[in-house]
């Protein structure tokens, strides 16, 4: 019985598997973290814009777009995010915002996230007299 050979291919395969797993875990982690950050930006951007674009509880699209743009340029949390696409629309008295972006240098290692899209909506409502204290 001649049992000759090398375990080098086995070690190389194992190292490749390790690297693949590490990259996979990092990519999933980055996407989760970036998703949280971008969802926060979208949530607060739509609140900010809706508050400033409504007249008697009904938003106007041009105002909404302008105020979203103002929030994204002024809020410090949006500075680490490369905004790729912003879409605003109105359905009745509801304002909607969808932002697609990449979070840059998330864990401080120079790696950006994949493109992540998040959406939020806002609506004005009137408090019942019993709750508003009127």
């Amino acid at each position, binding site marked *: *019985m*001649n*049992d*000759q050979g090398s*375990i080098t291919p*086995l*070690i190389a395969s*194992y*190292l490749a598997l*390790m690297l693949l*797993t*590490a990259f996979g*875990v*990092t990519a999933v*982690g*980055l996407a*989760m*973290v970036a998703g*949280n*950050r971008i*969802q*926060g*930006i979208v*949530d*607060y951007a739509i*609140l*900010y814009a809706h*508050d*400033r674009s409504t007249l008697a509880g009904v938003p106007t699209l041009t105002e909404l777009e302008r105020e979203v743009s103002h*929030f994204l340029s*002024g*809020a*410090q*949390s*949006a500075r*680490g995010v490369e905004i790729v696409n912003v879409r605003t629309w109105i359905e009745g008295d509801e304002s909607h915002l969808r932002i697609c972006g990449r979070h840059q240098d*998330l*864990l*401080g290692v120079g790696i950006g996230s994949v493109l992540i899209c998040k959406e939020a909506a806002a609506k004005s409502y009137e408090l019942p007299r019993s709750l508003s204290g009127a």
Partner: protein
Amino acid sequence: MPLKSESEGSAPLELVGLLALMLLPIGPMLGLFTVVSDQLAAESIARHGLRYAFLSVELGENPRQQVGPALEILAQSWGKQLGDYSLDCTGCLAGGFLELRVRVGSAVAHQSAGLEPN
């Protein structure tokens, strides 16, 4: 013709080598898990803490006094130790920005909200 064995090398040595290779990634993977976990916790704490601070401004309270205990509770719910935080609202005037920066471990999260205009 008799069978002849020509296997060379040491099986225990190969076993030790392979085990070392298999155990090697545990340290870096645990480190990576901690970094990602800290960052996720920081992002969540910042989002919910800012919401709390935002509502306390609406109620006419001082958000700087209110947000600290809330952040501690949020950090406890994640099982994390809150590093430090800063809340900046430049006088907390109506229409201004409210900025919350939270540190958990080595992770820093930052969220901004606009205060309601008059």
